[in-house]
C-alpha cells in the first residue's frame, strides 16, 4: 500500500518544522541539565533566546554576512519544504550542504581570526560528514530504487530492518550537525568562541539560531525515515516521532560522556567508522540478495 501524506499535512508540517526543532532543542537543554544535576532552562528557552535576540540592536561588520545568513536559512527552509512534500532526498541533502556552504561563507566573509578558524573547522566538518551523509542517502536510494522520499513509504519493510548500520553512521553526522561533543569543533567555545557565529549579533544571530532549528528537524526527519512503517500511517507517525526522540536522546548521552576531539581525530573517526559501517551494510545487503537470488 502506498501511503501518500496529504497536502494539508505537508503544509502544516513544513510550517511547524522550525518549532519542532525548537522544542527538541528545548527538551535537549532540559534533559542535559537533568543529566548534569541542574534545574535547566524552561522548555521554551530557545524561543525566548531568539525573541530576545530580535529585540537587540545588531552590530555587524558588513552586509555580506546578512546575505549569507539569509541564504543559509533560505536553503534550509527550501529543503524542509521539499522533505515535507516528499521530494527528492538527494536534492534535500544537497540543499542542506549548500546551506552549510553559505554558513561557512558567512564566517569567511569577515576578516576575523575566530571567524576564520571557525569557517575552516566548518569545512573540516563538511569533509567529515558529507561523505557519510551522501552515502547514507545513497544507500536509501539503493534499497528504495528511488531517491524520492515518498517512495520510502511504499517499501515492504522499514528501512531500519535492511540498513541499520548507516543509521549508526548518521549519528556521527547528527552529532556534528547538532554541535555536540565529541564533534562540536566548529563552535568550540573555549577554543574559538563559537567560531563562525562570532561576528553575528542581534536578529541575524537569531536567524542562525532558527536555521539551527531547521537543521535539527531536517536531520532528525531524514534519520527517522528509516522507521517508516509501510502501510500504516498512524504507526508510521508514532514510530518516526519515537525514533527521532530516541536518536536525540542517544546524542544527548554521547554529548555528556565525551570530550571534544581534535579535527583530525574527527576526520579519522568519521572515515573509519562512518564510511565503513555503510559499506559493510550495503555489502551485506548485496550478499544476502545474491544468496537469495542464487538459491
Amino acid at each position: 500500500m502506498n501511503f501518500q501524506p496529504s497536502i494539508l499535512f505537508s503544509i502544516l508540517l513544513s510550517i511547524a518544522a522550525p518549532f519542532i526543532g525548537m522544542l527538541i532543542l528545548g527538551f535537549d537543554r532540559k534533559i542535559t541539565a537533568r543529566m548534569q544535576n541542574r534545574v535547566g532552562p524552561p522548555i521554551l528557552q530557545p524561543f525566548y533566546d531568539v525573541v530576545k535576540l530580535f529585540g537587540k540592536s545588531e552590530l555587524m561588520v558588513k552586509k555580506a554576512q546578512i546575505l549569507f545568513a539569509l541564504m543559509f536559512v533560505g536553503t534550509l527552509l527550501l529543503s524542509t519544504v521539499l522533505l515535507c512534500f516528499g521530494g527528492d532526498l538527494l536534492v534535500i541533502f544537497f540543499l542542506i550542504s549548500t546551506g552549510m556552504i553559505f554558513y561557512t561563507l558567512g564566517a569567511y566573509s569577515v576578516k576575523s581570526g575566530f571567524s576564520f578558524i571557525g569557517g575552516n573547522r566548518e569545512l573540516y566538518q563538511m569533509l567529515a560528514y558529507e561523505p557519510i551523509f551522501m552515502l547514507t542517502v545513497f544507500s536509501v536510494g539503493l534499497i528504495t530504487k528511488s531517491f524520492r522520499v515518498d517512495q520510502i513509504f511504499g517499501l515492504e519493510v522499514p528501512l531500519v530492518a535492511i540498513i541499520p548500520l548507516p543509521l549508526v553512521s548518521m549519528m556521527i553526522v547528527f552529532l556534528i550537525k547538532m554541535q555536540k561533543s565529541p564533534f562540536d569543533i566548529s563552535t568550540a567555545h573555549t577554543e574559538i568562541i563559537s567560531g563562525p557565529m562570532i561576528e553575528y549579533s542581534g536578529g541575524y544571530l537569531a536567524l542562525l539560531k532558527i536555521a539551527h532549528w531547521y537543521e535539527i528537524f531536517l536531520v532528525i526527519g531524514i534519520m527517522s525515515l528509516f522507521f517508516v512503517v509501510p502501510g500504516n500511517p498512524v504507526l508510521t507517525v508514532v514510530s518516526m516521532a519515537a525514533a527521532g526522540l530516541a536518536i536525540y536522546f542517544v546524542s544527548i548521552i554521547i554529548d555528556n560522556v565525551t570530550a571534544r576531539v581534535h579535527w583530525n581525530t574527527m576526520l579519522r573517526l568519521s572515515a573509519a567508522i562512518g564510511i565503513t559501517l555503510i559499506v559493510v551494510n550495503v555489502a551485506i545487503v548485496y550478499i544476502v540478495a545474491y544468496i537469495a537470488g542464487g538459491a
Partner: protein
Amino acid sequence: MDGESAKITAIALTTLAPLLAGLLCYIAPGRKSRNVLISAGIVSAMAGSVLLFLLLRGSPGHTIRIELGSVAIPGLGAISANEIITIAEITLAAAFIYLAARIKAFYALALSIAQLGAMIWYEFSYAPAHGSEHAVRILIDYWSGTMCLIVSIIGSLIVIYAVKYMEGQHSQNRFFAYFVGFLGAMNAAVFCDSLAAFLLFWEITTLASYMLIKHEQNTESLQNAKRAFQLNVIGGAGISAAIIVLGIACNISSLGEIAALEGAIAPALMLGVILLCFGAIVKSAQVPFQSWLLGAMVAPTPVSALLHSSTMVKLGIYLIIRLSPAFSHFPAVGYMLALIGGFSFVSTAIIAISQNNAKKVLAYSTIGNLGLIIMLAGIHTSLAISAAIILTIFHAISKALLFMGVGVVQHEMHTRDIEDTEGMIAKRPLIATIILMGIVTMIIPPFGVFVGKYMAIQASVAAPWMMILLAVGSAATVVYYVKWFGRLISTDREMERKPEHMSTLFSTPLAALLAGAIGLSFVIVQVVAWFVDPAVASMGYDVVLQAISVEVVTPSGYISSIAIGASMAAVLLAGLMIKLDDSKKTRPYSCGIEFPGELGGMYMHGYAGEDKVNKYVNFAGIALIMIFVAIGIIAMAVGKVM
C-alpha cells in the same frame, strides 16, 4: 544550396576555416591583419557549428555521414582521402621525430620512430595486402555536434579573450596560429569516424598544445612542454597501437563500428578499446598522467583556459563516451575506467585542498571533473552518459569562466596566489564577482555542474562501490572551492566600491560565459531536451532523462533547477534590500584588541600536500593503468573477453 553541400560547408567552416586562419596567422604581416584572420576563423567556426547543429536536427536519423572517397588533384591524378590522411600522418610523425630529437625527449623519440615504422608498415604493406583499406568516414551525430558547439563557441570566446591578453607579447603570430588552428583540429577530430583520420587530428592537438605550452620559452615552460609532449606521445602511441590491433585482428577502422558491435566479440577488440581508452586517459590527464596538465599551467592563461575547458582534455572524454556503448560487451573495461576516473576524482580533489596557486587548484579541479566524467562513461548506463554529457557542457563553461577570471587577475595584479587575492571583492569587485560566480556555478545548486553531479550519484546506483569515491571526492571539492571563495570575500570592513575598468575584449567573453553558465542552468530542461537526450539516443542508448515542464526527471528522482534557483534568487534579492546603517557597523571581534589582520591557510599540508600524497597517488594510478592494460593483454592471451 542543397542539403549535402550545406553540410560540407558547415564542416568546412568549423574545421578547415580555423585551420586555414591559423596557418595564415603565421604569416600575417601585422596586428590588424592578424586580428581580421582570427575574427574570420572564430566567426566561421561559431557560425559553422550552429549551422551544423541545425542541419543535424533536419538530417535523417539525426546523423550526418560522409565518405570521402578520392579527390582529384591536378598533376597527381586521383588520390584517395585515405592516402592524404596517411601522408599527412607520416609528415606529422616525421615532425614529431624531429621535435623529439631536438628537445632530447628520447623515449618520445623512440616511441615516435616505432609508431612511424608501424604505421608505414600497416598502411603500405599490411592494409593493401589484406584489403582492409577504408575510405575516410565522417560521422556527425548529436554528441559530435554538441562537442563541436562547445569547442567552437567557448573556444572562440577564449580566442577573443586571448587577443587582449596577449597584447604586446612576443611571437603572437605563432601563438595565434596554433591557438586558432587548435579549434579546427578539435572539431575535425570530433567529426572523424575513421580511426586513422581521428589519430591525425589527435596528434595535431598534441603538437599544438606543445607549441602553446612552450610559448614563454623559458626553462620551466620548455621543460613542462617537453613533459606534456612526451606523455601525449605515449597516448598517441596507444591510439596507433589500437588502430593496428583493431585493423589486423578485427578489420575495424572506425569508431562507429566499435560502438555498434553486436554478437560475439573478439578479445583483440577488447585490447583495442583498452588501448584507445588508454590514449584518452593520457589526453584527459588522469592520474598518473596528471603532471602534463599541471605543467601546462606555465603557459599564458588563455592556453590553460583552452586546454582545460573546451578542447584537448575534452577530446579524451569525447573518445571514451563515444566508445562507451561497447563497454557492455566487456564489463571489466567499464569497471576499470570507472575506477581510474573515480580515483582521479578523489585524489585530485584531496590534493587540491593543499594548493594555494589558483591555476593549480583549477587544474586539479579539471582533472577531477574529467575523472568524474570518465567514471560515468565507465558506468555506461544511459543515465550515466547523460550525466557525463551535462557535466562536459557545464564544466567547459564554468572552467573557461574561472580560468579567464584568474587570467584577468594575473594580467592586472600579477599574482596567481589565492592568498594574495584576499578581500578582492572590495578592491576589484567586478573580476572578483566573476570568479565567485564561476565557483558558485561549479558547486552550488541549481547550476549545471551540480545537476550533473546529482545525476552522477543516481547513475552510480549501477556501480555502488564507485559511490564511495564520488562521496569523498565531492566533499573535498566543496572544501577547496569554498575556501577559495572565502578568501576572496574576506574583508574587515565594507569598502567603498570604486568603478572598475575592464577591457571589452575581456568583459565580453566573460559576460557571455557567465550568462551561459547561469542561463543554461536555468533552462537545463531545454538543454536536456536539445542536446543531452538526442546525444544519448544517437549513441544507441535508451533515453531515460525526461524533461517535464520545469523538472528534469530521472528514473529515480527529479530536480527542478528553476524552482530552486528562483527561491534562492528571491532570498538573495530580499537580502539585498536590507540596509545596514553605518551606525550598526563595527570592527571584527578580537578579544578586545584591534585585530592584527593576518589571515590565511587551511591547506592541510600535513594531510593533503602534494609531497605527502603524490607518491601514493601516482603509485596507485600507475598500478590501475597497468591492470587496465594487462586486462586487455590477458584477454588476448586467454582468448576470452572479460
